[in-house]
């Protein structure tokens, strides 16, 4: 228990251990730990950035989808409109065509009617002449005859 040179030995040992720790242990440990700290911080920042990017992408995709939907709706409505137009046009064309056909048919009928009338007139005239010839049973003045016929023909 008495004080002796152990005191000095211990002091020397203490100084040496402090020197060793200061030289070889502390800086290495702290450097390594700081490096790891920096790496972890970087990793966390990267993760956060990734999360943010993901959220951004998600948001972007939603807007894209909405835009697409809108576009699709526009296209559909346009198509509908266009379809309606086409139908309308077709209807118009068809109507016109019908009218034309009808008209031409009518005119044809009219022509046919006129023709038939003319024919009938001629036939009636011929018939009348034949009838008259038979009735008279004689030769009539051809000229007077034709005049009469023309008169009758006009009246018909």
């Amino acid at each position: 228990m008495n004080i002796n040179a152990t005191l000095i030995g211990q002091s020397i040992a203490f100084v040496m251990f402090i020197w060793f720790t200061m030289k070889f242990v502390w800086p290495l440990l702290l450097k390594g730990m700081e490096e790891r700290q920096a790496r972890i911080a970087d990793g966390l920042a990267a993760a956060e950035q990734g999360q943010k990017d993901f959220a951004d992408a998600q948001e972007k995709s939603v807007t894209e989808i909405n835009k697409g939907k809108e576009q699709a709706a526009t296209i559909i409505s346009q198509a509908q409109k266009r379809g309606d137009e086409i139908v309308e046009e077709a209807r118009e064309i068809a109507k016109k065509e019908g009218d034309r056909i009808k008209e031409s048919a009518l005119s044809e009928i009219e022509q046919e009617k006129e023709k038939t009338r003319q024919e009938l007139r001629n036939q009636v005239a011929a018939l009348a002449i034949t009838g008259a010839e038979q009735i008279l049973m004689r030769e009539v003045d051809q000229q007077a005859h034709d005049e009469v016929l023309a008169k009758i023909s006009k009246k018909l």
Partner: protein
Amino acid sequence: MADEAVITSKSYITHHLQNLVYGKLPAGYERDGQILNEATWTFAHSSKEAVDMGFWSLNVDTLGWAIFLGVVFSFFFYRVAKNVSEGAPSGFSNLVEMIVEFVDNSVKDIFHNENKLIAPMALTVFIWVFLMNTMDLVPVDWLPVLAQKLAGDPHFYFKVVPTTDPNITFGLSLTVFALILYYSIKMKGVGGFLSELTLHPFSSKNIVVQILFIPANFLLEFVGLIAKPVSLALRLFGNLYAGEMIFILIALLPFWIQWTLHLPWAIFHILIVLLQAFIFMILVIVYMDMAHQKDH
């Protein structure tokens, strides 16, 4: 153990409290009934011989254990420091890094100057004192009896807890004291340090009164300064010595009943071991901070 020696409680205790001392006995010294012809370097055979060896003798056991534990600390911490990687730490290196971070934070909290010495010193003090204190938890007879068997000498003294030796604790605290003086003078200059010792706590604007105050101030401040290393060493020594003493007393009980006291005291002692190491470290940091502070 020994054939002729009857072990009494007193001899058991005193034997446990005696260091293994290596020193020089003067010529003409009466030893074991013989007179020494010339001065001899030898191990002390009794407490009286240890005292008679004077100052220039060494406590081989406690100093040896202290150095051994310091080497253990240096070796393991150096190995971890060398292999510290950027990856996730595991096992022992995790523990080491936790301790280093804890010490680093303590230093940052308390010490407000730039000095690359303080943190490594705090770490050394903390771990070293902790390891030396932990030797107290090794049952009191294991290592001494082992040493006696190895040495073949039933009287072989062997104290294994370095911090129960005041030489060891004073060795630590006086080194710290030397650093306090060194940094006080380095940071404040001789004049600044002296004025710190003489112009506080009593001060006056009147120069004559101030001069009258100087002796009183110096007395107070000087006692305060000296109290730092003394209290640092005696606190550690006292706690561990008392703990060791109680372990020795418990060891006097019959072996089948010892555990009833030994176990609770050992568990409680874990706290003391750690707490004293922590207090020692914190006080070292505080004293170093005070030494660096320029304005009182």
